[in-house]
């Protein structure tokens, strides 16, 4: 599973899912923390839709962690102050980078978690549809 899809599923699913996968690695391999979880900033780049130019919208608080399994590094980065999530993400990333056999078994679990997220998002989108407005023009005499 490619990184963008994987990290989106993990972050949106939250700590429990990240921890569940990461524990499988932590029980079997020696994981060294290279840079413990710490806060930093990510500057957000956007494109203005009037003239098509780029500009900076502002910064987002993030938590970053780096670990090592054998000689392979892994990084965990997540929005807000979430040290545990950042740590588990780093372990999972290192497992993928090192191509550990466990990651193949995760594909199904991640796909299932993705289905859960899609259901939640679809539910939210459907409830928002209740606020969809259907305007009809008023027929006022003399109006044009």
């Amino acid at each position, binding site marked *: 599973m490619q990184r963008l899809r994987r990290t989106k599923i993990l972050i949106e699913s939250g700590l429990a899912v990240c921890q569940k996968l990461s524990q499988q690695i932590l029980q079997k391999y020696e994981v060294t923390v290279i840079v413990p979880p710490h806060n930093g900033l990510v500057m957000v780049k956007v494109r203005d839709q*009037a003239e098509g130019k780029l500009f900076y919208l502002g910064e987002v608080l993030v938590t970053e962690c780096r670990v090592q399994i054998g000689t392979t590094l892994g990084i965990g980065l997540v929005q807000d102050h979430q040290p545990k999530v950042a740590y588990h993400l780093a372990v999972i990333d290192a497992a993928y980078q090192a191509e550990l056999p466990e990651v193949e078994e995760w594909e199904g679990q991640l796909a299932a978690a993705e289905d859960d997220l899609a259901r939640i998002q679809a539910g939210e989108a459907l409830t928002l549809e209740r606020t969809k407005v259907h305007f009809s023009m008023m027929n006022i005499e003399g109006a044009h």
Partner: protein
Amino acid sequence: MAYVAVKGGEAAIAESIKRLRYERLRERRTIAVKAIRSGLRALVDRVMSEASLYAKELAALAIKQAEGNPEEATFLLRAYRSTLPRKYYSRLTSMGSMFVERRISAAFKDIAGGQLLGASADYTHRLLDFNLEKETSANVRAWLAAFQREQEAEKPSVMPRVELPRVTDILRSEGLLRHMQQDDTAPRDITRQSMTFPAERSERLQTLTRGESGAVVALGYAAIRGYGLAAHPTVAALVVGRVAITIDYPLGACDSDDEALYLGQVRVTEVDAIIPAAKKGPGGKQEIEIRLGYGLCFGQNESKAIAMSVLDYCLEHPIPDSPVHDEEFVLTHIDSVEASGFISHLKLPHYVTFQSELDAARRINRGER
């Protein structure tokens, strides 16, 4: 006359700070940061936007410490921000894949994907709801359960569109609005390099998006009232929703979008404002050109995003002698920390300068030179 530093007052200052805490706590009640985050959503969004830092928990903490004063909370959040390292720059954040929570148009009744009112106070009567005085956790749980049941029971059967087209595409397809050329020139960053005038468009937009809401709205309003624009802007689209933040993978190559790192989502408000402008066509014929102003800010800050789109237009199309079309006037006065900081400094001791002014006044009034 030179400046003279004053000293002393340490004990009084310590007591003053203690007194400030006492004023916050004197009624023996405290507000949980989580309660501020969830219950004062609009203030949290405003402070994050003005501080230019998307961090809900920290914004809520700053609001608590500032006793709800937005300018003080913004100052606290900006100060904290300055202690953190900037680790990365995001990949281009796409508005096209936004999860839309609200989308309205004042220009077109029917837009592809429809108009979604979402959560808005626009349609409330603005009558004080005295029931809120008696709101309890039990009331809240019961209301939420009923809301959930109602939403589940009467879900619309048609799945909404995931990616919605831009409303302004209607005008572009008709040739009424010129095609937008994408320009990937790296933006300037006003937090790293002081702005000089004339400013670049990226500097203008960055300054507007982190501007103090009241100042941005006031200047946008002044522009529409006749101190600038000669036309009434129309909101083509106001959209509130969540956009994904991603970065290039820091530990190796990131050859495709699929290999980027996802970090989370931020809620934004985006506005496209249509402004008609007179122009000379072929043969000197008077024509009307449709132009756009753009507003985008962190959080659900609708008035600010609309006013930003008006000011963006004003600064992109300068008019001599109009203050709201003067970028130095607008951009140097809308920052919360700079404006409140300067005004606030007037409270600090000016004993030497003031005595000097008094001496001068006495001399002149006595007829001396």
